[in-house]
């Protein structure tokens, strides 16, 4: 659970008021979009959540940690309850996909046999088992972000904080990434995603907190107030993308959203794609 009560943040060196009287409560298992223009206070909000900054006034409590009074040596333990995904992926270029994910476990002292079990599971979850030995520069933007997502999940974080995770990828990949976050959220993980992409917000239709000039402009339970069209793809394969094909399974929810509620058409497309995958799989065998 994340709770901000009357939080204000003033950067004293520049006398900038970044947030004022911020009150939010995010329950465990929620999916929340945070939107707002540049300079609205999103970065400050993330810094406060990460305990990189302390509030000038008000209290913050996240996952049972009182961030106002947390001891310095406890901060790393608090951060292990969070998984962070950045816009620029932040993968280590000279490490392959497997090692990038394993790195997050290694640097907190996980045992090698635990790493050997968990990393392939996570790579399977994001559909990248076949790319385990690839270097980041051999992957597309979407794939790199999926690696970053796997890394964020490596230490069993119960909250994912995604800072504009789709900022550097095309719409199709963006859709895949948020869909992945949606799946992770469905398993009970809290997801907080900062984004500028209102089409995505509209498409996935979760709680939306809008920040403007350091204050909460609105906090709505869904995206009905946002006046943009959700993403639609002409071709379901385009929408489903490499993730689905790699998994080789059916993902009706996924297709349903792209077909704007036309379940039958989506199901038909899913069957068609699954058949193609099965045939390809049989050929390979």
């Amino acid at each position, binding site marked *: 659970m994340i709770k901000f009560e009357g939080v204000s943040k003033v950067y004293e060196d520049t006398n900038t008021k970044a947030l004022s009287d911020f009150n939010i409560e995010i329950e465990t298992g929620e999916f929340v979009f945070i939107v707002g223009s540049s300079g609205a206070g999103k*970065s400050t909000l*993330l*810094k406060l959540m*990460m305990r*990189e900054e302390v509030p000038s006034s008000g209290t913050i409590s996240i996952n049972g940690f009182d961030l106002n009074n947390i001891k310095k*040596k406890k901060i*790393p*333990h*608090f*951060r*292990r309850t*969070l998984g*962070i995904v*950045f816009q*620029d992926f*932040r993968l*280590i270029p*000279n490490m392959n996909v497997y090692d990038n994910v394993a*790195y*997050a476990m*290694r*640097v*907190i*002292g996980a*045992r*090698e046999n635990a790493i050997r079990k968990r990393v392939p599971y996570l790579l399977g979850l994001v559909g990248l088992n076949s790319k385990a030995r690839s270097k980041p520069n051999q992957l597309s933007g979407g794939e790199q972000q999926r690696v970053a997502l796997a*890394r964020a999940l*490596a*230490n069993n974080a119960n909250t994912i904080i995604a*800072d504009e995770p789709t900022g550097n990828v095309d719409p199709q990949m963006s859709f895949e990434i948020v869909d992945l976050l949606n799946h992770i959220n469905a398993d009970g993980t809290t997801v907080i995603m900062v984004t500028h992409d209102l089409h995505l917000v509209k498409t996935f239709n979760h709680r939306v907190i809008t920040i403007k000039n350091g204050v909460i402009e609105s906090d709505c339970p869904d995206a009905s107030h946002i006046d943009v069209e959700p993403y639609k793809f002409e071709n379901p394969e385009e929408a489903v993308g490499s993730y689905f094909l790699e998994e080789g399974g059916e993902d009706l929810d996924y297709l349903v959203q792209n077909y704007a509620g036309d379940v039958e058409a989506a199901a038909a497309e899913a069957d068609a794609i699954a058949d193609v995958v099965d045939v390809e799989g049989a050929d390979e065998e």
Partner: protein
Amino acid sequence: MKGASLSYLTREGFRNIWVNRLLSLATIVVLVSCLVIVGSGSLIFLNITSVLDLIEDQNVVMVYIKDEADKAQMDILNGQLSGMENVEKVEFVSREEAFERQKAAYGDKANLLEGLDANILPNAYKVTVKDLSQFDATVAGIKTLDNVLHIHENSELAGKLASIRNAVSYVCIGVVAVLFFVSMFIVANTIRITIFNRRLEISIMKAVGATNMFIRWPFIVEGVLLGVFSAVIALGIQYGVYEVASIWLSDIMSMLGGTVVPFVDYIWIIFGMFVFIGVFIGSFGSIVSLNKYLKEHSNVVENS
């Protein structure tokens, strides 16, 4: 820290040296240069002090004994002299021995001493002093002893030698200290660059909840390893440089009546000093630079 983590982070330290090999090489070059200069300063100091030791060994106080002193009193005096703190050695010089030396010193003019015998000279003790800076106090102490007729000493030479030794010591310590801090500064800055190059890894480590000790450990390992590598390389270079320098240094030393201090006599001391300085500068440089970086720059949200 768990054993498995320690071994992983130590391996990371080794790996980082290879991954950042250009900067590792730059650190080693700086460290080796500083160590060789420090080593050269130390070897010059050793040679100068060996010459000073040689000259000092020849600087003695002649303590002449009263004629009326009997054998027992002379033995007591010998015991008192030997028991003094700053006395290295006491040798008895009989009047006969002194007379013979005198005759030998006169050479062709020894006939001037004809008709005289050894009784014109007193018995004496030849006292070698340990520390020339304490020379005057030692002489004053000897003067207070019983049965001392007269003292012959060269306090001026003693004073000069003591001041030369002090000056050489201060200059060498000063040069080594300055070089030590210069090398620490350069190495700390070189390591800062490697840290800056790896800000991505540090920000990821912080983001996933690595403790500060986990973040520091690979850098400390790296600093220690670079220190050890540099010490080994510097020892080899120092040996070569010293052997070449010995060729012309031996001429100067023989003119002063001494020989060049052999490198092998001090090889382990020099190696120990190099390893200590290398490891200290390497690890300390890493810790200082990393602490400064973590304090000033490392930011999980904005670092990229």
